[in-house]
């Protein structure tokens, strides 16, 4: 039991992903939603790296790199949009921005 295998990392990744998932479901504040998304992305990164390590393959790490790159761009664009929204509604709460009601 003292030996740490790939399963341990995967379970950890799954748990973190679930935490992020819960956050996405729970949060109404857009900024907090972004945080939850970051948690999920990081969880996935752990899984990629762990699997790559297990097979002795570098592809896992490569994917993790690209995920980080995507996350960074997402934050940049997302925060820009967030600011625009805030200017318009004075809030970043999803219940306030309910403009999709037909």
């Amino acid at each position: 039991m003292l030996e740490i295998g790939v399963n341990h990392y995967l379970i950890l990744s799954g748990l973190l992903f679930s935490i992020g998932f819960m956050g996405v479901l729970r949060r109404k504040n857009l900024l907090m939603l972004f945080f939850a998304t970051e948690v999920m992305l990081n969880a996935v990164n752990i899984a990629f790296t762990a699997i790559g390590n297990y097979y002795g393959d570098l592809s896992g790490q490569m994917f993790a790199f690209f995920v980080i790159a995507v996350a960074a761009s997402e934050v940049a664009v997302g925060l820009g949009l967030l600011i625009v929204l805030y200017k318009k509604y004075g809030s970043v709460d999803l219940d306030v921005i309910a403009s999709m009601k037909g």
Partner: protein
Amino acid sequence: MYEFIAFYVFAISTTILFLITVMSKNVLYAMTALAAGMVMISGLFFLLGAEFLGVVQLIVYVGAVMALYAFAMMFFDATKNIKEKHQNPTLVFLLGGLMALLFVLMFSAPIIGDNIQAIYPMIEGVGNAQAVGMVLFTKYLVPFEVAALMLLVAMIAGIILAGKKMDYSLTESESADEEMNIKKGDA
């Protein structure tokens, strides 16, 4: 033994920190916990022998992304607690718990599939950073360049959305309203 202790330390701390991120009512606490969790995850990367990735994690996430969040937060009132209406918290916890349970069940099974061959195997005798570099700039060159372009586009988008005419509303164009009012007046 060393790996065992390190894994559990990092694992438990990330879990707790991320839980704080998700549950906290205060944006500042949440962001701080997120940043700390990122650091812990980079520790996990080091444990997995991906030193370069760990460093990138520290620089990009804890450094750049968190700085971005911190700047963004300045627009909003960060010290005030966020008020959120939670319609049915039990459902959220149920769904999250179910998801966690499914993942635990799925990943606790032993991995079968020994016949999988590594496409880009770890290169013996070189450090991780060197190996990553060799793969990244040969096999993944095009995706890498595309990612670079994507980051550029994202940067420009971020600047335009947030930076230009900071004091002027882009979406609620008053001039347009004024034009319409003038036309109505004419009629």
